[in-house]
Structure formats: structure tokens, C-alpha cells
């Protein structure tokens, strides 16, 4: 085992694999920054280049590229409030308000350092847990996976708003997201649902245009209305100086960062859920970590913990999702499914052989995730001051450029002009949701999980009839979801009592 671990490191430090990894990192860096293009799509685009490569060269190239996408995706999310990746949306919620307050450097420092810690934790988990994780994955069938989705939705819904009305709005927003996921061809029977005779809607709405519209258009409108820079009237010299503070924040909240990394790894291990869920679960956990009501109300307005949680979980989930992909041939996410295709191209078959015959190669993947993230974080930190100053470019120069990026990013998902309309429609919806105090995160999560949830409900009903609802693990996860829904109320009561006692006995 230890031999394999060291051999894995030596494998990627050889000249050719290391060179290919650097190319992958460079490509991943820019793809991550551009909104819309995801790591999975990039692997697919780069697939033709690996035909002439050996497995030792192809894996560092593809995995290095894929794993840094999540890290640099945070940069766009923080600076412009536009999701660089579908998996970096949660970073916007607190990262962008920090940039607006002139703390872009601090937010970027925190996002990058937490990403690095997340990547290391995820990779360590990948190295350690391969023998343990098999029974866990096999223990969760379709009914349990459906309940895990409900748990995730409840988690983010309950924490998206304050008070009873907040829970209602959160759940309603999540439900609306699920409604949007109904559009398109039903995978079970092939019947078209809510397509209104449009060929474009046959495959349903794509995630990038929906997410870009919901989050980017309101930012653009806000910038136009304010007619100001993103950082407002904050002094020029203050912007880039917070990077070190952000790094210190990561270590100040190291417990939270590690816990969010573990959440990300766990979600990554579960097939089908992926980074879309991991980031929100981690964000919810970050909100839960608030010790006072005032602290909790600070989330959404620029609390650094809201950046640390999603940043760590996004990268940790990469290591986690490699576990089922490598060990059992069950891809943990769409990116991993495409990566599995690359395995086959270079002559590797996922399964037990990857843990015996190709153990060094498996560990080289662990090292690729760690080394590529170290490189990209160091490079980003070197230029962080310059990057943070992008928030001082006046809106009239920035807006046309960002809009072009937004529409190009959205268009690249289907190469159809319908994507642009979807951006506009969801942009308007996102703006009014924001204006009227409706939380957008549950809608995004509901939309992402809708199709997966439907599959699980269908499989469960077909396999077990109505009795799947009575399976012990389903009941346990259901009660967990109820506790999660009630937790904010319990926490609020506890905090109120604590503050009352403090006021009486100062």
C-alpha cells in the first residue's frame, strides 16, 4: 500500500506526465474562470487528445484539468457574482457581497485556501477509504437515495430563510426547481412533458443557462442600476490586501473547513449527486455553525464562512467521486462518467484491478488532485491582488464584456439560441426572486436534483411498490430531514435564550 502511494507520486513527477498535467492545469484554469463551461464538458472536449497518450500521461492531463476547474470557478463567482462552474454557485451567496464590500482579496484568499484543504482532504479520503466505502455505497438503494435528495433539499430550504415563513419560501422555491426539472422527455416512457411543441425542450432545460440566468443577470442589472464598480466606493489600495486575511480565516475556521470537506467527499461518494448538492450541503452547514442570531443574519451579506464551506466541499468531492468510479465503475458525477470513458480509451477497466494491478496509477490520481491544486492555488495567490482589482473596473466597461461571456457560456451548453432565451427568462425570475426575498439556492438545487429524484421514485415504486416508504433506512433519513427542517427553530430558540441570559447577567 505504502509502496503504491510513493510510486503514485513518482509517476506524476516524471517529466512527460508532469508536463501534461501542467497543460491540463492551464486549460482547467481558464475553463474554470469562464462561466458555463464545466469540468465534465472540458474532459469531453479534450478526449481526442489522449488517444496517443499512455494512461500515466492521460490521467494527470484530464484529472489535473478537471480538479482545478472547481478552484478557479470560485474566482468568477466571488468577483462578478457569476458562477464560473455549476458547482461554484453557493460561493456567490457570500463571496460576491464580500467583493462588493471591497473584500475581494479576502474572499479569494479564503476560497482558494479552503479549496486546497478540501482537495487534500478529498484525496486523503480517496486513499484511505477504498476498502471501507464499498459496503456503504451498496447499502443505499434507490429509496434511500431519494430520501438523501429530500434531506439535501430540506437542508438548504430550511436554512435559506429565517422564521416559519422562511422555511415555507425555501421549500416552495425548492418545489419550483423540481417543477422546472419536469420539462422535457420522460426518460421512463419517452412521453414529452411541458415542451409546448418545441424541439429545444425535448431534453429539458440545461443547467448552465438556468444557473447563469438566475445568478448573473440580477448582478448585471444591479451593476447597471448602481452605475458603479463592483467594489463600489471602496478605496483602491484596500482591495488586494485581504488575501492573507482570507488564508488566516481558513485556518481560524479549520474545523468548519474540514467538516465541509468531509461533507463534500461523502456527497461525492454517493453516485449521481455530485458537486451541485455538495456545495449547498456545505453552505447549510456553514450557516448552522453560526453561534448567535446576528451571526446567522450575516450570511448572505458577506460572511467568510459562507465562502469557506462551499470552496472546501467542491474540491473534496472530486476525491470522493473518484472512489466509486475507480473501485466499482460507478461514476459519482457526470464529469466522472466522462472520465471513465477516458479510462477505457487508455486501456484501463475500473474495478478491483485498479486496487491491485494498477494501484500506483490509482494513487497517482490522488497525487494529481493534490499537486494540481497546490500549483493553481499558488499561482492564483501570486496574482490575487491584480485579480481583485478587476472589481474596480467601472461597470460601463465591464458589463458588455461580462454579458458576452454569459451568453457565450450559456450558448455553449446546447449550441442553440434557445439557451439565450432561457438565460433571459431565468434572469428575470432570479431578479424578482431576489427583489421579493425568495431564496434562489433551493430552486437551483431542486432543478438539478429533479430528474435524479424522479428516477429514484420510479425505480423505488417499480421495485418495492408503496412499501419502499417503510424501509428502515428510508424512515431514518426521513426523520433526519424532519430534524434538519426543525433545527433552525431549535437553534434560534436556544440562541435567544442564551442571549437573554447574557443580557440579565452580563
Amino acid at each position, binding site marked *: 500500500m505504502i509502496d503504491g502511494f510513493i510510486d503514485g507520486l513518482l509517476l506524476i513527477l516524471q517529466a512527460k506526465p508532469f508536463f501534461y498535467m501542467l497543460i491540463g492545469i492551464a486549460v482547467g484554469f481558464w475553463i474554470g474562470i469562464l462561466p458555463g463551461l464545466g469540468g465534465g464538458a472540458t474532459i469531453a472536449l479534450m478526449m481526442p487528445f489522449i488517444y496517443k497518450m499512455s494512461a500515466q500521461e492521460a490521467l494527470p492531463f484530464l484529472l489535473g484539468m478537471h480538479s482545478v476547474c472547481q478552484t478557479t470557478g470560485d474566482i468568477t463567482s466571488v468577483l462578478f457574482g457569476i458562477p464560473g462552474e455549476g458547482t461554484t454557485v453557493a460561493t456567490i*451567496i457570500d463571496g*460576491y*457581497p464580500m467583493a462588493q464590500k471591497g473584500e475581494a482579496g479576502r474572499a479569494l484568499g479564503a476560497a482558494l485556501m479552503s479549496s486546497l484543504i478540501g482537495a487534500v482532504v478529498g484525496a486523503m479520503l480517496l486513499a484511505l477509504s477504498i476498502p471501507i466505502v464499498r459496503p456503504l455505497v451498496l447499502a443505499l438503494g434507490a429509496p434511500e437515495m431519494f430520501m438523501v435528495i429530500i434531506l439535501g433539499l430540506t437542508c438548504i430550504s430550511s*436554512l*435559506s*430563510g*429565517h*422564521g416559519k415563513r422562511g422555511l*415555507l*419560501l425555501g*421549500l*416552495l422555491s425548492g*418545489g419550483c426547481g*423540481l*417543477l422546472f426539472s*419536469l420539462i422535457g422527455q*420522460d426518460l*421512463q*416512457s419517452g*412521453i414529452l412533458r*411541458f415542451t409546448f411543441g418545441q424541439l429545444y425542450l425535448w431534453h429539458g432545460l440545461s443547467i448552465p443557462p438556468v444557473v447563469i440566468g438566475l445568478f448573473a*443577470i440580477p448582478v*448585471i*442589472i*444591479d451593476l*447597471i*442600476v*448602481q*452605475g458603479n*464598480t463592483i467594489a*463600489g466606493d471602496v478605496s*483602491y489600495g484596500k482591495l488586494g490586501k485581504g488575501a492573507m486575511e482570507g488564508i488566516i480565516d481558513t485556518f481560524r475556521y479549520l474545523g468548519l473547513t474540514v467538516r465541509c470537506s468531509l461533507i463534500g467527499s461523502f456527497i461525492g461518494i454517493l453516485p449521481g449527486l455530485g458537486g451541485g448538492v455538495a456545495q449547498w450541503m456545505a453552505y447549510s452547514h456553514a450557516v448552522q455553525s453560526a453561534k448567535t442570531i446576528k451571526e446567522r443574519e450575516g*450570511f*448572505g*451579506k458577506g460572511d467568510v464562512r459562507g465562502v469557506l464551506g462551499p470552496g472546501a466541499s467542491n474540491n473534496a468531492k472530486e476525491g470522493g467521486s473518484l472512489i466509486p468510479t475507480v473501485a466499482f465503475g460507478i461514476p459519482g458525477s457526470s464529469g466522472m462518467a466522462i472520465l471513465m470513458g477516458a479510462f477505457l480509451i487508455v486501456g484501463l477497466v475500473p474495478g478491483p484491478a485498479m486496487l491491485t494491478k494498477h494501484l500506483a496509477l490509482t494513487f497517482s490520481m490522488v497525487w494529481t488532485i493534490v499537486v494540481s491544486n497546490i500549483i493553481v492555488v499558488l499561482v492564483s495567490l501570486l496574482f490575487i491582488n491584480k485579480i481583485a482589482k478587476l472589481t*474596480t*473596473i*467601472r461597470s*460601463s*466597461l465591464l458589463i*458588455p464584456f461580462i*454579458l458576452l461571456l454569459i451568453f457565450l457560456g450559456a*450558448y455553449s451548453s446546447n449550441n442553440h*439560441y434557445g439557451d439565450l*432565451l432561457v*438565460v*433571459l427568462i431565468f*434572469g428575470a425570475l432570479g431578479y*424578482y426572486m*431576489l*427583489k*421579493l*426575498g*425568495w431564496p*434562489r*439556492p433551493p430552486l437551483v438545487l431542486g432543478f438539478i436534483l*429533479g430528474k435524479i429524484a424522479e428516477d429514484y421514485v*420510479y425505480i423505488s*415504486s*417499480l421495485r418495492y411498490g408503496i412499501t419502499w416508504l417503510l424501509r428502515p433506512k428510508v424512515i431514518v433519513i426521513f426523520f433526519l430531514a424532519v430534524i434538519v427542517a426543525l433545527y433552525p427553530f431549535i437553534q434560534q430558540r436556544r440562541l435567544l435564550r442564551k442571549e437573554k441570559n447574557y443580557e440579565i447577567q452580563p
Partner: protein
Amino acid sequence: MKFNHKGLLGLIWTITSAGVIITALYLDWPFRTALFPLIIGSAVLVMASTETILCFFGNMAPPANSQAVDSGLRETADDALTSKKTFQAFTWIIGFVLLIFLLGFMGFNGTSARLTSMRYQYGARETHRDRGWSGRRGLGGRQGPARE
């Protein structure tokens, strides 16, 4: 009954979810196709109608913008001006998309990106002048009040 925009959004979702349920029931979909829309549609209908009733008839005041854990819009002093600018922003973005439709992305890069950017720059110039910004500064230019 008190009319408010929040209730209107709730009402839209009530009607949409009712539409989903009716479609699932009356379009002769097989059970497996109709199952999920019925479950989700019913849940959303209950929640959306509750929200609508609370907004239009309830005593509970709708939560303020800050109550959602989400990144918010920056506050402005003049609501009427904000509404006007928001409308202008929407129309400008729609115009941007229309030009992409008309010219395509390749043509867009060459012609309309410049045209729309220049049009926006022209519109924004007065605002910047009011703020004391110099029009000569480029992308890498230092921002803030002009010295001259």
C-alpha cells in the same frame, strides 16, 4: 385584501402548479409519467396557495429582502429612479440578445459587441461624468474621481 408583488409571485406558482396537476391528470399519461408531476405539483400547490393567502389576506408581514439567505441587491435611495433604471437595464439586455439573434456570435464579435458597448458607454457617460470619472481611462485604468 392587500395587493403585493410577493403575493403575485405566489399566485403565479399556484396557477402553474395547478396547471401541472391538471395536465398530468387529463393528458392520458401513463402512471409512471404522471407520478412525479402529481407529487411535486400537489406539494407546490399547497405551499404556493398558503403563501398567496398569507400575503393577500394574512396578518403576517412579508419578510424583508434581507431575510433570505442569498446575496442581495444593493440599496438605492430613489425607488422611482431604480425602477426606471431596472427597466432600462432589462431592455438593454434584451437588445443585446436580439443583436446576437440577428448577427450570430461571429458577427456579434465583430460588429454588434462594439455597437452595443458603444451605445452603453454613451448612455453611461453622463453618469460617470456626474461621478467625476474621466472618459479616457481604459480597462486597466485606475478608477476613482478624476484628478483633472
